[in-house]
């Protein structure tokens, strides 16, 4: 074969030029190529690791954001570029077509990553009366709904305007701010609470201090002066976030973004920036990450509305949020602004109405409302006051509550879905609608537990914020610092049901708060995450702090000491997270499609060529194969004996051929043969140990069908060696002291074993690839799986594709690496012709047992030998 290769090589390069080179020059040339070969292998391994990590993310094994997709795609592209470049150094000019292929693929990846939702807004600002429901992609659904309610239903909504997604794009994209933010997130990482908080505060700071584009600032100020014209000069306004994509996947984004009340004209612009910045609040960032929503999908529109001087305010649900079949209207109300109800800061009054015209009050609960939140129109500040004498008074009359119920029912009927409506009522007792969004109803089991059934609770009472039962250690949170120490699976205990705790809901097993109700943001998010929440449980902080593990029964309204298994068994299974189908996963899938699928499987097929590389993986595979071949050819091509292959002599000449890459032999080998003792490569010695440890018992007894298939397929199967092709029946090694690469055809299958075992433990690896066989596909596939399963038991990471198996064991100390090579050596010897018996379950099980016993014995022996050597050295 080598003569054939040489001829080929000479055709391309001209043999003469090589012959003019002296030994020193050839050696220098070889060293350069070898260095490139090693770098190619490093890049190859890195690429495979990146792909594997992306696949893991795809399978939902961890949460990830756009920063992950971007950096993985970039890293994969860079490493594949390096592979191609190093191959071009090993074989100059020969595979340059790959650079073009790579460029194409990279352009595809770039196009996917650059896919931005384009803003459809053409105006920077839209007055609310010009906004309809169909414009949610310009002003966010919150403002679109309010505009619709105002113009189409003619219900009272405060005058105002929406700052559109175009303004947002102008501010964030056109100023380069978004690029800077992406860079920060990439550098710091947003998946850890300890880095998340400072990261978010840095980003928010950046946004708030950035200069608004002049036209955006001007549009906002003009909009405001028109609003003054409709109301009165100096009118105070509320600024509310109305993010695009809030309704994606039916998610509520409850309470993640800022809303600011009672804003004075001089603070308009800075407040606008603050609200845009709240896109990067810790709870918003974690929420998007957990739900797989790309940052770029969330354009922050802002609504600006004249303030209502609220006497009372709250939330109306057009149906029971905690019972799907219950169509009664729920009105939560407190003194002052609705904010107290939404933020879970106070307990609220509850009015329940039965549908009808007019709706009828079914029940009302008047709570102790210890605080009032209102805005002083003159002083321009918002503040909380003690409830005082009003604390026990109903914050709405029954008649007012029923007016609200009528409005809720009308909206529900108009829009054909359950709604969550924020409202305020002014001193003139006029009702205004401030917000309206779809309500996600949940089924609460609403059970009444027989007393004492699960022992004596530590505390009972409160309301169901989110249904379910869960157990975990109590962790009290009162400051941001407490978020950092929050343990996974902890039970969140807090006085207030503050929206900022939402960032912990990915980690918490349950929530207990003293204040708040099912109407608050925290309850909304808890329901979305399927985390049981017990709210409005008075005295909870004092009674439960430091109680260790507890079981929270948000359905039965009680907290029990320890884990109450009987109760936990009643908990409904948590809904599978929809994140695996999130927009983020869709982007990753698209990127992965250009990166990961492997189409080039068979190196002997004519399709194994640059123009058939359809993915980065294909290029990687192609380059790896070619680099090995090119390195192997070097000695022959250059007539360079020192780097030509030597045949192993073990009793008799074996079909094991070695090329010394660097320091793989203990001394220069003159002549044709090399002995095991002359080989300095540690990985080869371990592989050899495993190979010869236990004699092969000969081919397994083949059942008639199996044999027939060999005979039949020998004539057509491309994997079966051509008679007379030397290369088809040998083992070709390239070695240095710490590295080996084996390309082999053993019988009817071919395989590669590659190992780097050196001092850089993190770079160490052993990989084993295996394909083919003589039997029909099904048996070959089964054998691949059989071997894959076995390797997985020894902690290899295994991928199977048809009859091809790829296994890698990466990172680790030397002795573990060498053990893996012994294992592979054993398999090389003993899996020969295994494909023949793969349909016989009994035989397979027998082999499996024997293999495991043999391998364990082999590794034990090696370990003992190693120990003896260590002891001897120490003695």
């Amino acid at each position, binding site marked *: 074969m080598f003569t054939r290769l040489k001829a080929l090589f000479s055709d391309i390069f001209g043999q003469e030029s090589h012959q003019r080179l002296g030994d020193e020059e050839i050696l*220098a040339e070889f*060293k*350069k190529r070898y*260095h490139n070969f090693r*770098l190619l292998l*490093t890049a190859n391994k890195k690429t495979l690791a990146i792909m594997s990590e992306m696949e893991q993310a795809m399978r939902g094994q961890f949460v990830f954001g756009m*920063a992950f997709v*971007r*950096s993985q*795609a*970039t*890293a994969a*592209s*860079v490493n594949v*570029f*390096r592979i191609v*470049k190093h191959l071009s150094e090993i074989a100059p000019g020969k595979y340059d077509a790959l650079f073009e292929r790579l*460029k194409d693929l*990279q352009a595809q*990846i*770039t196009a996917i*990553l650059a896919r931005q939702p384009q803003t459809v807004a053409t105006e920077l600002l839209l007055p609310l009366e010009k906004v309809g429901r169909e414009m949610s992609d310009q002003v966010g659904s919150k403002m679109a709904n309010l505009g619709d309610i105002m113009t189409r239903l003619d219900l009272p909504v405060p005058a105002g305007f929406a700052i559109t997604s175009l303004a947002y794009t102008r501010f964030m994209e056109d100023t380069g701010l978004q*690029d800077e933010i*992406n*860079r*920060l997130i*990439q*550098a*710091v*990482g947003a998946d850890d609470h300890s880095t998340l908080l400072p990261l978010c505060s840095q980003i928010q700071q950046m946004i708030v201090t950035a200069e608004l584009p002049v036209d955006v600032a001007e549009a906002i100020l003009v909009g405001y002066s028109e609003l003054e014209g409709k109301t009165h000069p100096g009118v105070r306004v509320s600024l509310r976030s109305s993010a695009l994509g809030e309704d994606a996947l039916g998610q509520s984004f409850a309470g993640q973004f800022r809303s600011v009340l009672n804003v004075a004209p001089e603070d308009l612009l800075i407040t606008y920036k603050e609200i845009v910045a709240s896109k990067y609040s810790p709870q918003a960032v974690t929420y998007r990450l957990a739900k797989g929503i790309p940052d770029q999908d969330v354009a922050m529109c802002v609504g600006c509305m004249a303030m209502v001087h609220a006497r009372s305010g709250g939330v109306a649900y057009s149906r029971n949020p905690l019972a799907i079949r219950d169509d009664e209207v729920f009105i939560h109300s407190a003194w002052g602004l609705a904010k107290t109800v939404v933020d879970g800061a106070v307990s609220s009054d509850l009015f329940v109405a039965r549908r009808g015209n007019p709706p009828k009050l079914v029940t009302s609960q008047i709570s102790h409302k210890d605080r009032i939140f209102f805005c002083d129109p003159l002083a321009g500040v918002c503040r909380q006051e003690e409830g005082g004498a009003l604390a026990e008074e109903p914050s709405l009359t029954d008649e007012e509550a029923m007016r609200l119920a009528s409005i809720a029912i009308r909206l529900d009927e108009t829009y054909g879905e359950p709604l969550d409506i924020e409202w305020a009522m002014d001193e003139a007792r006029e009702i205004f609608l401030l917000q309206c969004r779809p309500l996600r109803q949940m089924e609460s089991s609403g059970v009444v537990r027989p007393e004492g059934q699960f022992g004596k609770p530590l505390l009972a009472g409160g309301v169901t914020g989110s249904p379910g039962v869960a157990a975990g250690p109590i962790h009290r949170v009162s400051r941001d610092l407490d978020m950092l120490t929050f343990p996974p699976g902890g039970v969140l205990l807090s006085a207030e049901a503050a929206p900022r705790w939402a960032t912990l809901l990915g980690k918490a097993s349950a929530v207990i708060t003293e204040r708040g109700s099912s109407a608050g943001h925290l309850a909304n998010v808890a329901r979305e995450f399927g985390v049981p929440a017990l709210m409005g449980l008075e005295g909870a902080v004092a009674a439960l702090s430091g109680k260790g593990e507890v079981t929270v029964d948000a359905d039965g309204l009680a907290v029990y000491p320890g884990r109450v298994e009987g109760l936990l068994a009643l908990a409904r299974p948590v809904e599978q997270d929809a994140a695996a189908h999130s927009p983020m996963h869709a982007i990753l899938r698209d990127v992965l499609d250009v990166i990961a699928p492997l189409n080039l499987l068979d190196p002997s097929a004519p399709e194994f060529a640059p123009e058939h590389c359809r993915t980065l993986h294909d290029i990687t595979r192609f380059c790896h194969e070619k680099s090995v071949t090119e390195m192997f050819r070097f000695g022959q091509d250059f007539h360079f004996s020192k780097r030509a292959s030597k045949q192993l002599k073990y009793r008799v000449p074996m079909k094991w051929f070695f090329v010394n890459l660097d320091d793989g032999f203990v001394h220069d080998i003159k002549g044709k043969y090399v002995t095991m003792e002359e080989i300095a490569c540690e990985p080869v010695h371990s592989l050899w140990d495993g190979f010869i440890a236990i004699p092969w018992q000969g081919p397994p007894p083949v059942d008639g069908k199996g044999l027939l298939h060999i005979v039949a397929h020998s004539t057509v199967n491309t994997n079966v060696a051509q008679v007379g092709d030397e290369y088809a029946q040998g083992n070709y090694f390239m070695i240095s002291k710490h590295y080996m690469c084996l390309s082999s055809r053993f019988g009817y299958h071919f395989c590669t074993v590659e190992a780097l075992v050196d001092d*850089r433990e*993190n*770079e160490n690896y052993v990989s084993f690839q295996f394909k083919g066989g003589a039997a029909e596909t099904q048996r070959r596939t089964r054998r691949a799986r059989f071997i894959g399963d076995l390797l997985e038991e020894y902690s290899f990471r295994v991928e199977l594709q048809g009859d091809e198996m790829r296994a890698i064991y990466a990172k680790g100390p030397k002795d573990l690496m060498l053990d893996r090579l012994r294992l592979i050596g054993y398999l090389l010897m003993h899996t020969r012709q295994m494909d023949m018996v793969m349909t016989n379950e009994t035989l397979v099980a027998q082999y499996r047992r024997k293999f495991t016993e043999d391998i364990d014995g082999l590794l034990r022996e090696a370990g003992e030998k190693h120990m003896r050597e260590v002891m001897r050295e120490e003695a």
Partner: protein
Amino acid sequence: MSTCRLLLVDDEAEFIETLGKRLARRGLTVHLANSGQQALDIIAGNELDVVVLDVKMPGMDGIEALQKIKALKPDLEVLMLTAHANVEVAMRGMELGAFDYLMKPVELDELLYKIQDANKKKCLTG
């Protein structure tokens, strides 16, 4: 391996100061530059083996600096180290002859290995 003479270029002064100290402790000779221009000045006046270069810098950005470095000293190996995860920019850097394009945050050992790998290559082709 012989001592490696390294130049770290990043406009975040604090970042390269800390990194520089850690690398110096591993036996490297470390120079620091806070801008592309400063980097070019240092490169013109010193024998160096490897440059670690940020991409996003005010004034002369990393890609431009890379181009000028390669024009000045073609054999000098340049590692891009950046938080700018962008396939196009990365490819541009690689095509201009960067040895690698690493993304922050990077583990010290990994960076050190890359520097060693780049250094060895430089010695071989130089």
